[in-house]
Every structure is written in C-alpha cells, then in structure tokens.
C-alpha cells in the first residue's frame, strides 16, 4: 500500500522522530510506513490521517489505485 506520509510530514517540517512521538510510535515505525515496508493498523492509519487533517484514503492508497 502506497502512502503520502513522507510528503505530508515534510510539509509540516517534522522529523520522523517528532511524528513518531506525536503518534505514539517509534521513529523506525514511521520510517517503515513511509518506505511501504509496513502497513499500519486501521487505528494508527486513522490517527495519522487525523494528524494531517485528512481522510485515511487521502493518505493511504491501495496499490494500482489512482490517486
């Protein structure tokens, strides 16, 4: 599953560490999500989307689905 977390985080000038602290997860978990190595749970995906003021489907995209 693709996502726009890296771009959204950069837009807020946040480090992976800072975003991780805000969401209650480790820096490595934020990195894994950004690189597409880990798909977050639904609660974490919702938490991330709310953090950026967006809907989940605006942050996460199923592979092959147009943005």
């Amino acid at each position, binding site marked *: 599953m693709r996502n726009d977390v890296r771009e959204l985080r950069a837009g807020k000038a946040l480090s992976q560490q800072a975003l991780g602290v805000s969401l209650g997860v480790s820096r*490595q978990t934020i990195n*894994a999500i950004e690189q597409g190595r880990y798909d977050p749970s639904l609660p974490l995906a919702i938490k991330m989307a709310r953090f950026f003021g967006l809907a989940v489907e605006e942050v996460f995209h199923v592979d092959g689905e147009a943005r």
Partner: protein
Amino acid sequence: MSTAKQGDSNALRRWTVPAVCVLAAGGYLAVFLATGHVAAAIGSAAIMLLYGTILVIFSRRSEVAALLRDDGRDERRAAIQLRATAVMGLVIGVFALTMAFVELAQGHGPGDWGTICLVGGGAFLAAIVFFARRG
C-alpha cells in the same frame, strides 16, 4: 488507559528484561556455586549481566536491542515480537519432533523430546481454540 498509567507501564516494561538478566545471573551464580562449579558460576553470571548491560546501553540506538529489551513498544514492534516468537516456537517444535523420531528410529522411546512435543502440541491446540473463540 491514561497517559500517566501508560508511561508507568512502559517504564516497567523497559526494565523487565534487564531485571530478568540480573535475576538469571543471581540464579546461575547460586546454582553453580552450590554444586561447586565456581568458573561456570562466574562465567554464566557475567554473560547474563553483560547481555543486560548491552541491551540497556544500545536500546536507544539500535532497534534490535530495543526489541530484545522490549523498549518503546508500538504495534509494528509488537508484530515483530509476535512473528519472532512464532518462528522460535516453530524451530523448537520441528527440532523436538525430529529428535523424537531419531530416538524412535534408534529403538528407544521418544523420551524428553516426546514430552516437549506433547506440551508444545497441546499448547498450540489450546491457543488455537482460545483465540478462535475470542475472535
């Protein structure tokens, strides 16, 4: 769960593994000294203390050390712990089953390997039933 309680729980969890290392070191020391094996007592205790110390020092810098120490748990780290535990269980199960068959092939009973297989298989069955019902 309140943030304060969660913080207490995290603090407790991150010191559990180092505390177990210290307890294990004490246990090895007591058991080996009681049986007169001074070198084994000192060596085993030192290894456990060294392991605990390494985890404490490197858990901030290395995710592997953090995972081994159970420090800073989140859902991804919990999933990694779960998968690692499953792999460990699988390896032990396959090894015990293989050794039980080796014992049988040599004309002996399955012995302790059979007991491990029985306990492991029983625990797996019980866990499947429990988690299937829990949903």
